[in-house]
């Protein structure tokens, strides 16, 4: 029987993978992808609590989890569009997407 714990552990694993990817990868596109991964891990958590409403006491409107997920998907799409646009713009001017080399604001 697949219970809420399974979903939540999967979500945590996905979130951790995304977080590690954000921290250790140097390619800006991979970093953006890792952020998407984290957002989707969060989406999975929302859906879990929506699907198993009794896990949290007093959660009598499970539809709220779905609404939040749609909201996150919309924002994530916008974020991906803006982020990729920035990455392309940076690549055009500096011919690299390595985040370590994009440090002209430093100093």
């Amino acid at each position: 029987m697949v219970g809420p714990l399974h979903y939540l552990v999967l979500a945590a694993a996905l979130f951790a993978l995304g977080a590690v990817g954000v921290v250790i990868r140097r390619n800006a596109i991979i970093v953006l992808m890792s952020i998407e991964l984290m957002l989707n891990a969060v989406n999975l958590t929302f859906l879990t609590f929506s699907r198993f409403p009794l896990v949290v006491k007093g959660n009598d409107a499970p539809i709220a989890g779905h609404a939040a997920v749609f909201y996150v998907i919309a924002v994530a799409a916008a974020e991906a569009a803006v982020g990729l646009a920035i990455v392309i713009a940076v690549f055009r001017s500096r011919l690299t997407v390595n985040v370590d080399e994009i440090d002209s604001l430093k100093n």
Partner: protein
Amino acid sequence: MLEVNWLHLIPLLPLCGAAICGLVGNKLPKSWLYAVALGSVFTAFMIGLSAFGLVSSETGASALHERVFEWFTAGKLHVDLGLTIDRVSGTLVLVITGVGFLIHLYSVSYMDEDAAYWRYFAYLNLFVAAMLLLVLGDNLVAMFVGWEGVGLCSYLLIGFWFEDDAKASAGRKAFIVNRIGDFGFLLGIFVIFSQLGSVSFADIHGATFAAVPAALAALFLFIGATGKSAQLPLYIWLPDAMAGPTPVSALIHAATMVTAGVYMIARLSHLYMQAPGVLAVVAIIGALTAAWAALIATSQSDIKKVLAYSTVSQLGYMFIGVGVGSFVAGTQHLLTHAFFKACLFLGSGAVIHGLHGEQDMRKMGGLKKYMPHTRWTFLIATAAITGTIPLSGFFSKDEILGKALQTSIFNSLRMWPGGPFMTQLGLVIYLLGSATALLTAIYMWRCYYLTFEGDYRGGPDVHPHESHWFMTLPLWILALLSVVGLVLGLPEPIGEKLHLDWASWEHFSLGVFANPPISNNHESIPEWLTYGIALLIGVVGWRLAVYWFGSGSEERSNKLVAAFPRVHSAFEHKLYVDEFYNAVIVRPLWTGARVLWRVVDVWIIDGLFINGTAQSVAFIGSIARRFQNGDVQRYAAMTALGLAFLVYVFLR
């Protein structure tokens, strides 16, 4: 007490003179400058004379007073700048301005060749102004301003030739030693204010103090007096003060400033009478100083040093006088001493001037041939100081010694709690004072004989010559005054017979000082006997001096010196007091200052506190800087770690 509105002119005129000489003196023609400097002092003298005439007439007011302006009010303390003249301060005003004027006149000739003559006269006028304020002030604070003012002028004039390092440091020494005493003076003022809520002499006059505060105030003020009036243990600055020009030594370091301590004690006689223990201290210190300085004076070869130690010794006599409760005798000796010591100093100045700066008596001798005026006046003043009858010094010194013998003021004092009474202290002081009188006669006649008698021992290229009349006139006037000063101290029967009893100081100053108790410890000793002893001592001292130095050289006395080489060398080296103070006070202070500088300041304050603070901030910053490196991913890692930590803490 008569209220007037012109007393402020007396100190103000010399002050204006000082301002003019000091500010524009180098642009004025020399004769104008002299007119300003001498004129201001002389006008002050004339005003002082009229004030003196008012207070000394039998029918007039006993004192004049002027409230110049309200000075300051702070809480309970209210101080006016007030001036007051009574018979004593009036006489002193005449001495200060009169002798001061003579010394100004003398200085015109003495300092004529000095390029900084205008600075000299500015200082000298400023000194006269400060000294007048000291004498005239009607409260302790005003007196203290004058007290500090004369100290400042003394410092400026000792170090007048400041290009010479030794002279500059002699000035500093005088200033620093005086500051030690002034600290005591200030504490004394504080004690009196805390007890009385007032600092004016009029209030102190009528006040009754508790025993302990009276003793404390009197003792603190006496510490001030030991500094200013060069008593043990603070006398060391006065011999060094001879580095200044000789007229300065005559005015400041003989006639006026150094007697300020005696004047102060006499002015506060009512306070001191309430502290007989302190009076005993005053008398003992005075007697010890008199003897101590006289011993040193016997073996000095610098003519000015002899006179300086003689001054210290004579000041000791004055303190004996006020210490045994006879404020009349102390101030009387103050006056006569002002005349003959100023005359002696000016005489030595004339000698030094005539010998082009030579001060060593071993290179003098036989000067009576070249300087008849100087010689005669010096002779008269020497006779006065050694107590030759009937000159002024004889009467004033004998008055002090006689009062020391008779005094009963110490009868109620015990040597220690429960110990025997000090009834014989007066006798001890009398004996010590008489022994000192013998020494005085010896060293002063030695000074005279070595300088003026015998053959000239100086180099062939120095031609001794008599001075200008600007210098000899003051000498004669002062010599005359040291003779005429005898009227101050004539014994009553003789005075009455000559119709001079009105001029006797005891009669004249009646009512100004507190009266010592009437009872007499040694009734059986008649006055003529003490006179006889004093006279005998003077003659013996003179004969001894004639025997040793009569030929004008030290041939005979050298045998004595050869017999006691160590004693002589100790006296010659001023009994090693300077060396002692150096070892005990100055060097530890130096070492302490070096420790403070090198360890406390450089290491602890600069190193630990100042640089240490900066370095620790920089160190913490260098660590914190690593987190602020602009690497977003590292921020993210940190955020994640922090989040994980919070999750761990709250969900544990």
